[in-house]
């Protein structure tokens, strides 16, 4: 790997631009995503910027259980994000459709329609967990550019109130064969 590639990987890890998309969410996760950018959590320290246009974004953040009316929009927006890109499913809804499971108005879960890289479980997840997920997705983005294939999606640990990474989870990401088990 030459110097330019190294610089590119480093830059990708340190400059994740997000596009936030609501796939029929109750707004709980959307509020938490915005909270992760507020003064208390300040995700901009990691270089995170919430972009208005999917064309500018690297990471697609999708909330909600993907309703039948939203599914085509989700696919369109996924195609509009330019390569290399990563997808984060925020909350339990896009991972498993949560309490709306087997509802006739849903087309979810999300990974039936587009490949998901990071699941951030929780109903809603805490801003800390979302920031952890974004950092993990940025890492995946940098590795993807270096032509390493990532087969399994990463499921982030549940971060409870007051978890500062000193508890059993240690702030580390766990990988599971079946993301739905961990997400539930």
């Amino acid at each position: 790997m030459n110097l330019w590639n190294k610089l590119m990987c480093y830059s990708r890890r340190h400059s994740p631009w997000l596009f936030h998309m609501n796939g029929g969410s109750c707004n709980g996760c959307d509020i938490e995503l915005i909270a992760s950018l507020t003064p208390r959590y300040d995700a901009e320290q990691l270089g995170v910027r919430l972009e208005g246009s999917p064309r500018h974004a690297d990471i697609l953040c999708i909330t909600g259980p993907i309703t039948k009316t939203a599914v085509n929009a989700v696919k369109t927006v996924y195609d509009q994000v330019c390569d290399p890109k990563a997808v984060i499913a925020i909350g339990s809804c896009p991972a498993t459709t949560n309490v709306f499971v087997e509802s006739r108005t849903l087309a979810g879960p999300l990974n039936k329609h587009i490949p998901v890289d990071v699941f951030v479980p929780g109903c809603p997840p805490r801003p800390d967990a979302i920031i952890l997920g974004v950092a993990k997705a940025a890492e995946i983005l940098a590795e993807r550019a270096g032509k390493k294939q990532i087969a399994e999606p990463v499921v982030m640990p549940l971060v409870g109130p007051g978890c500062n990474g000193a508890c059993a989870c240690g702030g580390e990401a766990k990988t599971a064969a079946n993301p739905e088990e961990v997400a539930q």
Partner: protein
Amino acid sequence: MNLITALARLLIFPGLVFAVPAAWFFLWVERKAVARMQGRIGPPFMQPFFDFVKLMGKSTPPRNGIGGLLMRAWPLIAVSSAAGAVGLLPVLPASGGFQGDLILLLALLELPSMCIIAAGFSSGSIFGEIGSAREAVLSVSYNIVFLLAIVSIAASQHTFSLAALAQQSASPLRWLGILAILVCLPAKLHLNPFSLPNAEQEIYSGPITEYAGPELAMWELSHGLEWVAATGLVATLAAPVLATWWAAALVFVALCFGLVLLLSVVAAATARLQIDTTVRFYWQCTLIFAVLAVASALFMRFRA
């Protein structure tokens, strides 16, 4: 010797070698100042550089035909004209060669905003078109004041030459003109309270909504270079006359930095105005002072 000095000015200071890192630095100062004003820590020092490198490595959507070609061309024209504007600034004492004048500098400063308007319309996105229309209305409003301020400065000192203006000490009328330019800068740089063309949360990213990858990187760079050129123009007009070149360069950089800080703090402290309020602000409140400045400059010239 003249040729070497001219090349050094265009390529090293205040040209490209100085201007590009300065553009990134000013973009960082802007984001950091806004973050500090909001009680956040803000992005790390190298952030605009990382953003630039990352955008250079991203793919762009396929663009076909003349429209696609134009979409690729606009950001490049914007970057080159903004870089040319920075290169024209007479920071160091003049030593012959091509020096340009205020009119050329104004034209080069205006070109990026023309490119933004054209880019929004050629992208075909509805948000781009709204943003371009706003930018056009805004540029008609602030440019009247901006140009009148420049004319008043030039008339009061009997010259359009930048080098001659930099050599003369500032008169009270020039300070009035500088004040009028300062009022126009937030609109020129798309900052709050006049951030209408690229109003986030309202029309996505305005004219640059459809841009991605290296093209977007060029827009970011041209925005940074506009920062350097616009604050540099004010710094050149306001700086005291210094004999030693290193002191002149130091004062120039310090004044630019102070201006960036001031504009960012104003941007963080204000909310976006509506387009009609903005237009009314420039046409009704600010225009009177600009006309007064020009009138008194001309009057003093005829008396002298």
